[in-house]
């Protein structure tokens, strides 16, 4: 049962990574990478249940957070071409 889930997840990950590699625009790549990260989280969760260790769910949640931080950083860079003291901060002064 969980084995089937894992194989399906691996196929989905292969498709997401191919979109991240081939994607003509940067949006395709970001979307592909983000869904690949989500599938990694699901894979770890499914693997935890397959081997009878549901506490892998905690690890999966941490991975989801890290993936989220990475995606937010990439999108912020894409929007402002900078991560820190960019043009949008000069309004504060």
């Amino acid at each position, binding site marked *: 049962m969980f084995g089937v889930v894992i194989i399906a997840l691996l196929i989905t990950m292969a498709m997401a990574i191919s979109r991240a590699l081939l994607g003509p625009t940067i949006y395709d790549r970001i979307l592909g990478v983000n869904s690949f990260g989500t599938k990694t989280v699901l894979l770890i969760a499914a693997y935890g249940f397959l081997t009878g260790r549901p506490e892998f769910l905690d690890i999966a949640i941490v991975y989801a957070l890290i*993936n989220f931080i990475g995606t937010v950083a*990439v999108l912020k860079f894409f929007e402002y*071409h900078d991560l820190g003291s960019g043009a949008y901060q000069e309004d504060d002064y």
Partner: protein
Amino acid sequence: MIEQLLIVVLLTFLVVCTIGIIYLRDLLAAVILLGIYSLTAAGIFVVMDAVDVAFTEAAVGAGISTILLLGCLSHTEHVQKPQRHNNYWALGMVSVTGILLIYGTLDMPRYGEALSPANSHPDLAQRFINESAGETGVPNIVTSVLASYRGYDTLGETVVVFSAGIAVLALLGRKRRRVDDDENEDVTNPELASSASDKSDDRGTNV
């Protein structure tokens, strides 16, 4: 069975990612793929039951270094210039080094082998499994080795990383403060000026 399949497929993803990173001219896409690479490597570590290594790999590789590389990209262009010449000498050196490294692993015990010296020697794995809980009071065996049996080693590592962090902060903070002092020249109260620059420093490091 499914574990073998999982490791093989994830390693294939790593190879595909690496080839993509080498061939992509857009450096932003390469950084994004590097994030995938680290996350996949962390997944492999989880499958191999090295959860603590996987945590480090995910936090440092996929989280922090993606952000650091994006910070680097914001200071440069993010399209790689086409290379004019092929560097076959470097390719040969890297290949020879790789073959030597693989040759060096040939006489190591196989992954997960119960009879390997580290697992079968009575003073190593068996001793830690049997006695670490009683000797150190730490329920996790890996943590007991890291924090108790080789605690001074870990303390030294932490001191090195901490001083490196302080050095980087000193280098980065100095330039920013000088800029702020120039901006606050007309402020007569020096205490107010320093507190203003401190505040902007905090914001800079938080982002």
